[in-house]
């Protein structure tokens, strides 16, 4: 009997593993797996990988000290427009953990036609550095339990300047 249970568990595990390995998808669209080469070891999730939520799951919108205006002020104060003809969108996505700390920053960049493009380093480095320095993210909870969540910021760039910040 014991052998049958062990065998069944092995088959179940194997089938689950196969299912996951064969899929091109992770748990959820947009999940950021910890990557040694780019992610700091200082940033830790408070709960499991499978418990990380999306910012809108809390139905409160963006939660930052001083609300969206507080966030905008940080970029107004810190970002210096770059003299270039480049325009488009930059998204930086990251995780806010249960202590309000951030990590696993991921960047995508496009032109105004949503085609991938690499922005001038002077733009991208500034935006990444400011985003990484933001310290006003609010802790969000689900059933009274502080929860890790994905947040993103999208910057609409026109000729090297930040015109709008979303969401």
């Amino acid at each position, binding site marked *: 009997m014991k052998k049958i249970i062990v065998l069944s568990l092995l088959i179940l595990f194997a089938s689950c593993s196969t299912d996951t390995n064969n899929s091109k998808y992770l748990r959820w669209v*947009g999940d950021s797996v910890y990557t040694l080469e780019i992610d700091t070891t200082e940033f830790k999730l408070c709960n499991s990988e499978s418990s990380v939520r999306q910012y809108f799951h809390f139905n409160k919108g963006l939660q930052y000290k001083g609300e969206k205006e507080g966030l905008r002020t940080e970029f107004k104060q810190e970002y210096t427009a770059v003299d270039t003809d480049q325009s488009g*969108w930059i998204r930086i996505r990251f995780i806010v953990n249960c202590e309000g700390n951030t990590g696993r920053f991921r960047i995508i960049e496009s032109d105004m036609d949503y085609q991938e493009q690499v922005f001038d380093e002077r733009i991208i480095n500034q935006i990444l550095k400011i985003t990484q320095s933001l310290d006003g993210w609010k802790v969000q909870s689900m059933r009274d339990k502080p929860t890790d969540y994905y947040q993103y910021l999208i910057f609409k760039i026109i000729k090297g300047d930040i015109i709008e910040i979303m969401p």
Partner: protein
Amino acid sequence: MKICTQLFLILVIFRINAQPNCEAFKYYGDTLKYEACKEAEKRSGHYQFSRKYQEALDDALAIDSTFAFAYRAKSTAYLKSGDFITWKKLIDKAVQYDPEGQLYYRASCRYQFFRDYKGAIEDIKHLDSLVKYDIGYSQNGDYHLNIIMALSYRAIGKPMESLKIFEQTLQDSSYSVGIYDYLHLGVLNFEMGNYAKAIETLKKQEIENDIAENRYYIALAYRKLGNTKECIYNLDLAKKKYLMESRMFDPYVEKMDQIFLIDIENEIETTYNNR
């Protein structure tokens, strides 16, 4: 009776923002789309970000690579995670195979999530050129597409075109006024320097949906006209409403003309300092 049935099925196929009725494809003899549609139903019960949800739609597209609904359903998770590159590739496919049924979605998402005003205008104009019926509402139901076009024109610095669309839309007796229509028109009037008109319009918003934003902008218009008493009254009311969460809200993004507590408090301070 047959005409009624056909009309009903057409409406069901193109029903906004919903899973198509697979039986309608069968009725019209489109077996491939019927099978793809049934395959897509397997995503039911799975979260739209999840592997199972995406895989069910991939399987549907493997059956019929022209099934527009599956592309749009796949695109939503990318939209909500801010991945505009993948989202655009998917939603472009949906529009390619079903422009009449999918342009409303691409247009309103371009406006709502990416502040892509020119793109939204292009899509709405394109949709309007394709259909003879009412072009309808945004995917979240907050705005008629005409209003999104008006807001987009305003955002790209064409207030007169914006005003024209607002007035034409709101004068149409068959039009149901949206929950923020008069607010945005009031702000447009304010920005154009028509303060009395802004007050008149924002008072209409009070009747439709009295929130912190219309009280805030009406206060600014009163101040421009030198009426400090009404300005203070409305700013105080705006703050109360804001704190009671009677204000613009979208769980995904900041809305156009949305205000925050600091905006109200700054204006209260300015008004008291200038008395």
